[in-house]
């Protein structure tokens, strides 16, 4: 059979597209025919819309960029294909961290192939600004607050932020992890334990969010994340809390990590990951099935993992790839991944759809963003959070 694949994804921009092209070339050199079906926008919403329509029409694409619990959700609808044969042949279980491997499995079979690991709880800073104001990279939220006040006095915007709900959620989960610790995070945002959700810690989290709101400039609403990154880059703002794709912006502007900009995990312990992956859909025809298998194999293969992640700013999902070519931030990330994986604090990001199913994650985000963009009290926010989660099933 001649391997064929129609690939639905939303990696359309510069670095991503280049890395997908790598995959496509490899696919072609292995005798496959690649049909590209990119749908950008809304963090994959548009692609998901298209996916649903196509599945219902009985016309599903062969491979789709999917991640987190959504993979299991689709599996439950009975439309995913089983790629265990590839996974077993390639020994994925040995090279992937256990928590990440868990995301790729449905009812014990392999149904998706991981591409990368993004770390979410990063804090980025402008080195010159920090130096000029005599500030170290903060390691606790109190330190961060103190630094922010200092920066405000100096006329610098402490926190660059874009007012989109997923960005609010990104900051929020970093604060939850930082203030509550990995266990609290697990309880609150993964298990959705009502006690944790209504705990005092959660009130403190919202208090901190309110404080952070004060460190953000007035025009943040609707701002794209990369514009916020640019603010850090050109010294308008000091910090940004954002996943490691922000690094791509710095690098693209010719900035050097450690010199021009600094990267560190957000205050507190733990590691929040976002794993991109491809799920294979049930399709007709040997050609297509062959395509799926080939694709799965290539995606997890070291070569692609390296090339792709160099371009994307993330780190490989498999642990056996050499990090020599990667920058310092990536190295930190990989190292932390190893350590937290062992310590049980390698946690899925809720803001990026790794921890929860869509409706629960969305319910939380609604409250977070409503709180951040109004003068809602923390107590109210906590109450609403519990209600919203309860209402989301």
């Amino acid at each position, binding site marked *: 059979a001649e391997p064929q694949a*129609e690939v639905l*994804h939303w*990696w*359309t*921009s*510069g*670095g*991503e*597209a280049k890395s*997908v*092209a790598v995959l*496509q070339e490899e696919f072609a050199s292995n005798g496959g025919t*690649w*049909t*590209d*079906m*990119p*749908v*950008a*926008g*809304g*963090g994959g919403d*548009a692609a998901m*819309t*298209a996916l*649903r*329509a*196509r*599945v*219902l*029409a*009985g*016309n599903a*694409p062969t491979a789709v960029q999917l991640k987190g619990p959504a993979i299991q959700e689709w599996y439950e609808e009975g439309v995913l294909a089983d790629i265990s044969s590839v996974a077993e042949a390639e020994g994925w279980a040995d090279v992937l961290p256990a928590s990440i491997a868990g995301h790729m499995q449905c009812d014990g079979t392999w149904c998706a192939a991981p591409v990368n690991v993004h770390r979410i709880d990063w804090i980025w800073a402008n080195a010159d600004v920090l130096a000029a104001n005599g500030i170290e990279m903060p390691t606790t939220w109190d330190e961060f607050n103190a630094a922010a006040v200092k920066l405000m006095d100096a006329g610098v915007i402490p926190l660059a932020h874009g007012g989109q709900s997923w960005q609010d959620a990104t900051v929020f989960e970093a604060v939850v992890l930082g203030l509550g610790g990995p266990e609290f995070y697990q309880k609150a945002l993964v298990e959705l334990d009502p006690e944790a959700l209504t705990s005092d810690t959660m009130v403190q989290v919202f208090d901190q969010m309110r404080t952070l709101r004060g460190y953000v400039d007035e025009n943040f609403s609707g701002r*794209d*994340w*990369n*514009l916020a990154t*640019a603010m850090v880059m050109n010294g308008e703002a000091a910090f940004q809390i954002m996943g490691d*794709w922000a690094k*791509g*912006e710095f690098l*693209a*502007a010719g900035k050097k990590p450690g010199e021009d900009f600094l990267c560190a995990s957000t205050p507190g312990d733990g590691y929040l990951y976002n794993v991109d992956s491809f799920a294979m859909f049930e399709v007709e025809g040997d050609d297509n099935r062959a395509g799926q298998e080939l694709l799965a194999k290539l995606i997890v293969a070291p070569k692609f993992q390296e090339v792709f992640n160099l371009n*994307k700013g993330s780190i490989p999902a498999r642990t056996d790839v050499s990090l020599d070519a990667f920058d310092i931030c990536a190295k930190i990330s990989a190292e932390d991944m190893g350590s937290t994986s062992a310590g049980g604090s390698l946690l899925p990001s809720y803001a990026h759809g790794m921890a929860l199913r869509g409706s629960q994650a969305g319910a939380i985000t609604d409250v977070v963003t409503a709180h951040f963009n109004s003068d809602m009290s923390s107590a109210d926010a906590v109450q609403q959070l519990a209600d919203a989660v309860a209402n989301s099933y």
Partner: protein
Amino acid sequence: MTDLSMPQTQTRSQSATGKIALRWLLYVLLGLFALYYLMPLFVMLTTSLKSLEEIRTGSLISLPREVSFDAWKTAWSGACTGIQCEGLRPYFWNSVLIAVPAVFLSTLIGALNGYVVAQWRFKGANIIFSLMLFGCFIPFQVVLLPMARLLGMMGIAGTIPGLIFVHVIYGLGFTTLFFRNYYVTIPAELTKAARVDGAGFLRIFWSIFLPLSLPIIVVTVIWQFTQIWNDFLFGVSFSQAGTQPVTVALNNIVNSTTGVKEYNVDMAAAIIAGLPTLLVYVVAGKYFIRGLTAGSVKG
């Protein structure tokens, strides 16, 4: 038609100055509105002609210091959507293949429907019309999933005929509305005269009503073309690789949340994607009013 401001040169005395002042006010008002309408286009156009550097540093409203068409070239044939870097060009053709037949069909059917509802009333025609009108309000998000299912069953999922079909179905409410409201103003005696002359249903439509319909055809075509050309939701849901319309490509170019945002390319792409509709407006708009001014409705 009659022009209300006809011989108003008034005896050059009392109200002459008042009239001139009024006239000035009128033009100032029209000019202000023109500014309001032009502002976004101005911003888009100037941005598309600036370099990225200038966009980052300069003011939004300022004219480009140095005009460059690179962004346009990139948008048309170089920008990457996914792994292909062919710009908007290949998708453009898809859009044409979808929009032209869909506009034609929905306009034609709408004209026939409007003609029936306005001039050949039968019992229940008004109820049917109301039902069709209400169809205008159904949110398209609602129909996505069942429609996908039906398209799959009909075997035209992901194809251009499938997209044409969807656009025609959901355009019917409007096209019927437009034609019906136009045709009710045409005196019933015209149909009567033609019937006595021996013309049948279709003949009357073809020979009497269609020639009268230029303005409303233009309105309908403008509306339908805009709706269909600019449609994203159906385009993204009911297409597959190879049948995606230009809006999906534009979306891919504009909505890339990672990497450096090339605003000038985005803007250029946006303008290019909008050019056909703009063109339709500029060209058709002329006929639209002209058809009406000919005032041919009156016998």
